[in-house]
């Protein structure tokens, strides 16, 4: 009697589990491709902010290379670099870099570098800077971060890679110097990294 009841309960739940999971699995099956496509598109949209779609013709989302951890990229983990090519020739590389010394911690950046070492663009992907002060680095909030476009280690002497207060060329955000300072340094380091490893990145 007891065990029969137990079995019944188990069976009942089991049936519902089978039915429920069945439906979920069917849904998953039908949506899988859409979802993968969505994820790819979201990634591309981010990358295309830095590089116009017409500048490349390869599948940048899959044309990647793993680079080992490097202090120049601010990360202790190996990172992924996306490679853009046009007609098979390298156009640019996009780095996931981290500025470790933001006001409230790490600032995750996406930095696009053309093969010639000039900047395609910089975006702050994830950060915890103070709303109203440090968050001016988001494109949504201000144009500040667009100021990097086109800069390179060649067209700007190394000492000028700093915020204006420190004698450089980059504006600071009103009331928040630390955040820009951190980003400027991170970008500069990423360019240095590219300088040293350009060959490895494009094989």
């Amino acid at each position, binding site marked *: 009697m007891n065990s029969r009841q137990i079995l019944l309960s188990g069976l009942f*739940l089991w049936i*519902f589990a089978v039915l*429920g999971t069945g439906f979920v699995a069917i849904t998953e099956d039908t*949506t899988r491709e859409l979802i993968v496509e969505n994820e790819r598109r979201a990634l591309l949209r981010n990358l295309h902010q830095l590089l116009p779609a017409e500048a490349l013709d390869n599948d940048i989302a899959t044309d990647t290379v793993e680079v080992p951890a490097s202090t120049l990229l601010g990360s202790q983990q190996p990172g992924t670099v996306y490679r853009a090519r046009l007609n098979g020739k390298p156009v640019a590389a996009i780095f996931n870099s981290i500025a470790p010394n933001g006001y409230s911690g790490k600032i995750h950046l996406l930095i696009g570098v053309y093969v010639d070492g000039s900047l395609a663009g910089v975006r702050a992907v994830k950060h915890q800077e103070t709303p109203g002060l440090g968050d001016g680095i988001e494109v949504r909030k201000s144009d500040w971060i667009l100021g990097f476009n086109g800069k390179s280690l060649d067209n700007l002497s190394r000492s000028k890679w700093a915020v204006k207060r420190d004698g450089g060329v980059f504006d600071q955000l009103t009331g928040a110097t630390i955040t820009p300072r951190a980003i400027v340094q991170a970008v500069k380091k990423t360019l240095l990294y590219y300088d040293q490893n350009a060959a490895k990145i494009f094989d």
Partner: protein
Amino acid sequence: MTTNSEITGSGLWTSNVALVQLLGLCPLLAVTSTVVNGVGLGLATMVTLIVSNTLVSLIRGFVRSEVRLPVFVLIIACVVTIIELAMKAFFYDLYLVLGIFIPLIVTNCAIIGRAEGFASKNPVGASALDGFMMGLGFLIVLAVLGGMREIIGFGTLFANANLMFGEAASALTIVLNADYGGFLLAVLPPGAFFGLAILIVIKNLIEERKVVASVASDSLPEAT
């Protein structure tokens, strides 16, 4: 038997999930920094409520009592997962914004509460209506709270409408005053609590006025 208007009234007002039962607070406070986020999650929750209420009501006749709760949980989890998959497929950007709070609809106590308290005792039609009304009540609060916080915090309304309705909807965004610097408190965590408190107070005040009014109208015939 509960009448349809009673179900409507209780879902939208007298037993409003958010204002009265104080359930589903996590998404309520976490995702309401803008109207669009609020509505997005509200819709997902509403769909879950309708579907789970309907299913539970359908099977209410033959569920064994000792596995009733697990079966309900299972059903709700499946519904939510399906919705999650659908959102990923069709509203991917909105899904990214709402993030973890979509799967967390499973633990929204309001849903299991309705399954237990209403759907398992009522016919399908009433249960579905109850799910709809409860969900709508929740949705409205999410939207209003989102609107409040968005206006005060950013000075905009319907920002990011494109997340839900596609790029064309970007035009929906209303910027109330371009010079408005924003009152950040409203969009930060404390603002969420304050905002909900304000909504509850407004509801209390309305109730109070209703009581006063009904007392006044009660005493009227005696006076004349």
